[in-house]
């Protein structure tokens, strides 16, 4: 990459003279900086969090690290966007199977200020999240980043993939229109085709032998309470292992030779 030229320095006449030691800091900017520093210092003295933050953020990354390495963070931000828009959608949503659910979604979409936008973010964001999860998984697979010692992180990632699918499945019912209803009927019956445990699984999902009011509240509870908590906890574990084990170089980067070997070859 071509190096950008350095910006020319300010003319010396325009530069403020540096403060002498011991001179009191009087400008509002100085005072604000001072207050910020002392606040962070107060927190850090009691928690020692800056060490942890430095450990997490200022890691060494291998040569060859490129844009593909941002897919994991992109997935996490998609999840955060889903979490935030979901919390606000829950302020208007009513899980009432006898018409209230559909009506509340119609209200959000047509009448609430920015409702269509926030609901749209949640709806399209779910597809974005699923796509990003698969791209991230593909990056990990094709770069061989799942190998020792990172197998456990791959396993956690697969669980996160399954949980993301669970979110998609349970969220699909909530608008409670024809598409949502019949897709859920079909989806629950697909679960029921598993031998031996299938019938119990589909009864568990429906909350009984027939689709009913319990089914919707059950899906809503799984969608907004159970699975998001699990996903957040597992993202924490996933990130901890990434920070602890470090990232891998892309497969096309050759391992650096040891200096002795290089000399011997020369």
């Amino acid at each position, binding site marked *: 990459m071509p190096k950008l030229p350095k910006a020319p320095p300010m003319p010396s006449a325009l530069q403020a003279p540096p403060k002498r030691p011991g001179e009191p800091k009087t400008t509002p900017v100085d005072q604000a900086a001072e207050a910020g520093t002392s606040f962070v210092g107060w927190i850090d003295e009691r928690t020692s969090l800056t060490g942890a933050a430095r450990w997490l953020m200022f890691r060494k990354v291998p040569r060859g690290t490129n844009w593909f390495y941002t897919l994991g963070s992109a997935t996490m931000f998609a999840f955060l966007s889903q979490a935030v828009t979901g919390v606000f959608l829950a302020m208007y949503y009513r899980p009432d*199977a006898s018409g209230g659910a559909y009506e509340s979604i119609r209200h959000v979409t047509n009448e609430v200020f920015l409702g269509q936008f926030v609901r749209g973010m949640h709806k399209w964001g779910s597809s974005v999240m699923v796509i990003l999860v698969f791209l991230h998984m593909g990056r990990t697979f094709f770069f061989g980043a799942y190998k020792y010692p990172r197998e456990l992180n791959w396993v956690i990632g697969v669980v996160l993939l399954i949980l993301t699918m669970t979110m998609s499945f349970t969220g699909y019912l909530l608008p409670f229109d024809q598409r949502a209803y019949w897709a859920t009927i079909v989806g629950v019956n697909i679960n*029921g085709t598993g031998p*031996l445990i299938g*019938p119990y699984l589909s009864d568990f999902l429906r909350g009984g*032998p*027939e*689709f009913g*009011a319990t089914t919707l509240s059950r899906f809503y509870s799984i969608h907004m309470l159970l699975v998001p908590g699990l996903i957040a906890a597992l993202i924490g574990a996933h990130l901890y292992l990434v920070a602890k084990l470090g990232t891998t170089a892309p497969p096309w980067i050759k391992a650096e030779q040891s200096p002795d070997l290089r000399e011997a070859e020369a």
Partner: protein
Amino acid sequence: MAERHVTHKSKYTLDRGMPGAFEGETVTRRRFMVVGGQAAGGVAAAAFLLPALGFAVGPIFKSTPHRWESVGPEDLFNEFNYVPVVLTVNPEIGEAGKTTAYVRKFNAALDTDPYDKGTLYIAISSRCAHLGCPVRWVDAAERFICPCHGGVYDLLGRRVGGPPVRPLDRFYTRVNAASEVELGPRFSVNSELRRFSPRDPGEPLDGVGQYMYPSRPGAQKL
């Protein structure tokens, strides 16, 4: 080798010179507190986890009472063609709790199956035996056809094409004192039209299917 075994500590804390040890005491107090603390934590966690879990899976074991619903007077139905009727399977959720059944009079020439002997009306559920979409009766083709994945059934509800794994479900029927046809609980049939307690769509009932897909624990005999 033998001498190393001799240096093994006694299992009695008193012999090991622990301060305040009682005679005959074998568990150290630290170990006792660790095990006791973990056991207490386990009991406390189980005290809220087990009821919550039972609460969530309870509906699997609940039995629902049989419903009988009048769907029209006897003259509404004939022996040769199906009449669609709407019945309620779940009264709590309005329109979403309704389903369609296709009803006709028992026809001795068609319904030769021994299990149907004595039935006055045949009521076929519109719930596809593949994954539960609503099938419709197409008069010209004399077939039930499913819009979702192309399941096709004949006049008796037996599969003739597509992915379904068993014939269409049926409902028990009876005639009440006011000469109205009433539809009762649902039952499933295998490819020989033998009756089984109701199964979900997608669950075969031929061969080992009836054992691989057991009936509901709460299913009641009619």
